[in-house]
């Protein structure tokens, strides 16, 4: 599992391009920050009101007035700006944030996302997730391909209540990368060294396979 997470994080980091403004969700997505090569100038957006998150502070330098959306103490990088929450979500809803990478519980072949509540369990709240999935110019979801019971989290339709409908642009799991296009869900990459057939077995959703991948498979 640790290995699966590493794989996902490493692949997700490749989504980030020089000059982008990026929102990373709480938890696993936050860990992507460390994998952004220093050659890339990236502004990380924290929805509580910071554009330009820096690294964690050195011990003793932490500031209760400087936290990220996960309520962790952080720093601000050079060229950062502090903003209020309305301005912060104006950036998101207005399509100014180039990329958001969030965790998922289920993703459907329509690009629906569920990641905020499980019926019967205490609902803690959606925080900024519903705004981010609607507003980010590109939404990438990262999650393990199957749950602890081995069931596919990549579904024909989500069972769980949605965070957003038809919002996912790309899904990165420990097994594969999928894109959601006007022609439906497309398998773009296989990350675990297996093949299309194995991905189909582990995936409830219906998908087509990208040409480049078919050629590769054919040539093997």
């Amino acid at each position, binding site marked *: 599992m640790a290995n699966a997470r590493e794989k996902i994080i490493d692949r997700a980091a490749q989504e980030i391009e020089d000059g982008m403004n990026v929102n990373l969700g709480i938890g696993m997505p936050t860990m992507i920050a460390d994998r952004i090569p220093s050659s890339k100038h990236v502004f990380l957006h924290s929805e509580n009101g910071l554009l330009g998150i820096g690294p964690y502070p050195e011990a003793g330098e932490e500031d*209760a007035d400087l936290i990220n959306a996960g309520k962790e103490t952080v720093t601000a990088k050079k060229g950062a700006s502090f903003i209020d929450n309305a301005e912060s979500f104006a950036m998101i809803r207005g399509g100014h944030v180039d990329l958001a990478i969030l965790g998922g519980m289920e993703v459907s072949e329509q690009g629906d996302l569920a990641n905020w509540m499980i019926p019967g369990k205490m609902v803690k709240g959606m925080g900024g997730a519903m705004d981010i999935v609607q507003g980010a110019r590109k939404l990438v979801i990262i999650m393990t391909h199957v749950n602890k019971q081995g069931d596919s989290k990549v579904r024909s339709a989500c069972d769980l209540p949605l965070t957003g409908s038809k919002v996912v642009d790309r899904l990165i799991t420990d097994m594969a990368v999928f894109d959601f296009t006007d022609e439906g869900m497309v398998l773009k990459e296989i990350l675990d060294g297996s093949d299309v057939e194995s991905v189909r077995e582990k995936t409830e959703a219906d998908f087509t396979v990208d040409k480049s991948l078919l050629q590769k498979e054919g040539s093997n």
Partner: protein
Amino acid sequence: MTKLATSFKESVRKIKDGDTVIAGGFGLSGIPENAIMALAEQGTKDLTIVSNNCGVDDWGLGLLLQNRQIKKMIASYVGENKTLESQYLNGELEVELVPQGTLAERIRAGGAGIPGFYTPTGVGTPIAEGKEYKEFNGKTCLLEEAIVGDVALVKAWKGDTYGNLIYRRTARNFNPLVAAAGKYTIAEVEEVVEVGDLDPNYIHTPSIYVQDLLKGETYEKRIEKLTVREA
């Protein structure tokens, strides 16, 4: 024309049973610590509290929960508070979960006299149930309504005696929106400065939004998740 008020105790008397109170802060950062404590002491009941979070069990808005002063909580995330969970499951407490950006915009709209607005946030999700919707350029959007508080509680860094405020770093968060959305706004600050000491070009909350200004004698400023760099 000073807005410097006598005491927190005196100022929170503005808050009556059944009132809607909007409070600034994100997690425990930038919360109006002293006003909340005075409100807990006053014991006012049946409050509707609007704030992004509800503090933790023994700090911030959690103090009002412990006292059973809150009838309804409007927030985007309440996961840090077990008292809330048990009161909610008991049916003692009503909770309205609002997406964070929609919450910020509803409060901003309340201050700006915009009674309602459309947003794509939440379409196709449980929060869309029962809401009016409308298409704009082929995109379905929900109608959301403004939130106005009988009283607003704000925490700023510095304030002058006319009520001009500036905030510090991410402790700004919801505070400027909240300041504008209260019919009566009580602002607490770490430092009171002379009129003219704040540069008019960089004031975050203009004096017009503030009715009472108070200096908090102490600020605990709890950190919820201390994270530091590995040396």
